[in-house]
């Protein structure tokens, strides 16, 4: 249970960065940390004590594997995280180009 709780603490650190920081790059860092913690939680949920990695081998027949369904889900999630981070950084650079600063309290026009 300590392991799950530490994963939740990592998510809270990312959430604190999203809520309280004033620089857009720090907000993006907070989103990236939140994503790492969610992927880690998915893999932690499917771990079996004394299990083996989900690959078949030609010599032996393996019956005690860890959960492969959650790992397939986590692969998809990691690659999607990269795509959204690239889009965030592109929008942040356009904002810097227009306003000259990364500070979110100085970016106040809704349309531009």
């Amino acid at each position, binding site marked *: 249970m300590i392991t799950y709780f530490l994963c939740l603490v990592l998510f809270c650190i990312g959430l604190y960065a999203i809520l309280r920081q004033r620089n857009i790059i720090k907000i993006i860092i907070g989103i990236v940390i939140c994503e790492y913690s969610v992927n880690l939680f998915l893999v932690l949920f499917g771990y079996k004590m004394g299990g083996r990695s989900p690959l078949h081998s030609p010599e032996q027949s393996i019956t005690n594997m860890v959960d492969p369904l959650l790992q397939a889900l986590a692969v998809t999630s990691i690659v999607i995280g990269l795509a959204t981070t690239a889009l965030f950084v592109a929008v942040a*650079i356009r904002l810097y180009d227009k306003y000259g600063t990364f500070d979110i309290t100085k970016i106040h026009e809704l349309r531009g």
Partner: protein
Amino acid sequence: MIQHNANKGMSIIVKSIARILTGFVLLYGIYIVLHGHISPGGGFAGGFIIALSYILIMLAFGKEEILQRVPQATITILESVGAIMFLFIALLGFSSGYFFRNWLPEGTPFKLLSAGTIPISNVALALLEVSLGLFGIFLVLVLLKFSQKK
């Protein structure tokens, strides 16, 4: 061989090592893509590794080398080809049942030509990922241009 121009890119040590290493990185990426159904890896990781070999050349030699070897139109075409190939393989499953059915004969396990349509799907996904990684390069190049203008 890529010539050494002292004005652009990094020092000559980095350039010599990058010249030697790029071929190995490319070969490793192709190996991971093709053996996606036997050993860990698959289309996603392998495609990104192939893109990383181009990124190594761009970081060591400056951006003109990559821009004259891989023009921007090629990247768009590569991405569309990858996505359409994946969808085409899925639609061909209609020929023997339902959408996304595995329509190639499955051979013996642990050989390279087994597991039905999975190797072809791996190659299609790898093409998509390679072009995405190269899009990342172009995003970085535009960022460099912005930061140098100020």
